[in-house]
């Protein structure tokens, strides 16, 4: 099969322009239904994200890393993954977690640290995880998840299970030593792993130019013997198409791929950050008003004759209902019992833990 994409380009690969018109010679393989589902997931993701932000403002959640602006790169990249495939999200990967199958109720319960969160609220908000869906909640020391993502892929190769491992990192995490160790390992073992670099152009306050002297993050793959692709991360069609290509390659035993999704976050790094200290409002407005992934996709679908006001109204109703239902589930879910603080340190309680538990709770 001739590769449909060129690696290491200076300009991002795209299918849909900012104004929603198709890019010449780039014909999607996605079905009409898939295109509409991608759009619907983005709208739902934005609504869940907005709801999380409201909960922070209300003081009900202590922290959030907003996803708004990055829906296309996250949802497009996760769209063709199967249930058996693995994702290693960074914080902020709400869209990827949603696409992989977490429900609005679970996602909002995670933000509130409730029992309905598959990880039982063990992690700060925006660190999504679910064992059954092979979503590995991240540690907050960015970059150090990457070797495990390769290890999962190495095991898939050894077991001949056909699983693919998708590792999300930000532009900042490409500077971590463990990330480079993982790139190297994946290259040597031709592991079925995809490194999805969400280049939202800021690692807290450090912009991409101060993160690396490389022209692109994609080109870093060349040093490790595999291809890197620079993609318009706000073009959900491009994000889905390029990732499908990388997934197919990985499953066929053709090794790792690095994809740089060029995108932009609208919110600060997190609810604890003040982005006015390091970026200009005009820059944010430029991205939000002229490059928004959701607006762009809606224009595209409309141009293609796949979308109209009635479809939009129906979707908005469905999204509203899904978020309301999710919120109700999350709110109804209890906090985990205090005694569970001892659970899952080990498979079973060790003697010193039993003693501590009796000391604190009066029973083992």
């Amino acid at each position, binding site marked *: 099969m001739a590769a449909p994409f060129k690696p290491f380009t200076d300009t991002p690969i795209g299918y849909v322009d900012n104004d929603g018109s198709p890019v010449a010679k780039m014909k999607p393989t996605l079905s009409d239904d898939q295109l509409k589902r991608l759009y619907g997931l983005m709208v739902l993701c934005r609504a869940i994200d907005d709801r999380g932000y409201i909960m922070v403002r209300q003081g009900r959640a202590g922290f959030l890393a907003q996803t708004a602006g990055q829906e296309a790169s996250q949802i497009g990249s996760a769209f063709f993954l199967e249930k058996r495939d693995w994702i290693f999200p960074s914080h902020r990967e709400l869209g990827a977690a949603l696409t992989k199958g977490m429900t609005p109720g679970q996602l909002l319960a995670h933000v509130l640290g409730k029992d309905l969160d598959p990880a039982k609220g063990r992690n700060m908000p925006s660190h999504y995880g679910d064992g059954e869906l092979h979503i590995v909640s991240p*540690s907050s020391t960015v970059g150090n998840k990457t070797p495990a993502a390769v290890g999962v*892929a190495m095991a898939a190769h050894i077991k001949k299970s056909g699983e693919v491992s998708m590792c999300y990192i930000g532009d900042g995490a490409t500077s971590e030593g463990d990330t480079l160790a993982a790139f190297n390992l994946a290259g040597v073992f031709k592991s079925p792993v995809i490194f999805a670099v969400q280049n939202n152009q800021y690692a807290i306050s450090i912009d991409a130019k101060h993160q690396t002297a490389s022209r692109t993050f994609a080109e870093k793959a060349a040093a490790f013997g595999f291809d890197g692709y620079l993609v318009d991360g706000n073009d959900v069609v491009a994000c889905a198409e390029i990732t499908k290509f990388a997934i197919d390659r990985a499953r066929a035993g053709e090794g790792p791929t690095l994809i740089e999704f060029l995108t932009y976050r609208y919110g600060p790094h997190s609810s604890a950050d003040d982005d006015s200290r390091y970026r200009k409002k005009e820059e944010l407005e430029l991205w939000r008003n002229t490059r928004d992934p959701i607006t762009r996709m809606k224009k595209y679908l409309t141009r293609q004759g796949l979308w109209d006001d009635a479809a939009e109204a129906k979707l908005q109703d469905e999204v509203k209902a899904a978020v309301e239902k999710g919120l109700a589930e999350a709110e109804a879910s209890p906090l985990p019992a205090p005694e569970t603080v001892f659970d899952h340190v080990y498979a079973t309680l060790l003697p010193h833990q039993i003693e501590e538990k009796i000391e604190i709770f009066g029973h083992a």
Partner: protein
Amino acid sequence: MATETATRTFTMVQAVREAMQEEMRLDSSVCILGEDVGPRGGVFLCTEGLYAEFGGDRVIDTPLSEAAILGAGLGMAMNGLRPVAEIQFIDFLFPGYDQLYSEIAKMRYRSAGMFKVPMVIRGPYGGGVRGGVYHSQSPEELFAHVPGLKVVIPSNPYDAKGLLISAIRDEDPVVFLEPKRIYRAVKSEVPEGAYTVPIGKAKVVREGTDATLISYGAMLHVALEAADRLKNEGKNVEVIDLRSLVPYDGEAILESVKKTGHAVVVVEAPKLGSFANEISAFIAEKAIEYLEGPIMRVASIDASVPYNIEKYYLPNADRIVQATKKTLEF
């Protein structure tokens, strides 16, 4: 008639190798990864012959990166395998320490049990081989302190095999530290076939009534030497081999200390913040009314391990004898 089990006189290297070999034969999910573990057989030959028997998919030579070894092992363990990661010298683990501290140890907890990490991290540690600063350290407390990790240190080939088999079968990550000073210096009878020594159980290696020496790893043998000398002076000293640091066998310690009334803890790490402190505090908390003298700690000097004058750095029998007399004469 019971089936005869062949017993051989083995070094710890042979025992460690046989534990891995037998477990790999029994369980196809057990695999090895590390630097030079393949055709080279490991720099101490702990994996000699295993690449030839099991092939490169199960005895995996990795690039030179401890973060990659530990992190890849974590991923493999999460995805259904039972990796045994060899760290060439435990001193070299630290480029990958974050993998152990932030990822391997915390994965089960932060996923509320959705992911587990049945993984062994093993390698040679400790001094006495003129290895200088970076081939000699005893950093066991840096592992023992981390919730989610188990820490095991054998003192002889029989225990090494049985404990390593237990570690490989354990559902949680186990840091398995092999005292390289006695890799070949101490031999013992090792039976063929799988047997386990339980993690978390200490062993009374010498019974006595006057004082309790608590140690593990290579220092156990120094403690035994001290016990011999004390015996010549009429002091009957009990010696406990801790074998596991996490979990440690508090019952065995208390039983002995309540009997003798004196405790001396011997470790190879520098004293400040060492595991001797945990044991000492435990004894003080649980059995102070039985004590007839201070709990003594004998440890390495609070310095890095010097290449040339190492023998003044490490605990020796003299220092253990002196410490024991100090508490006995209190």
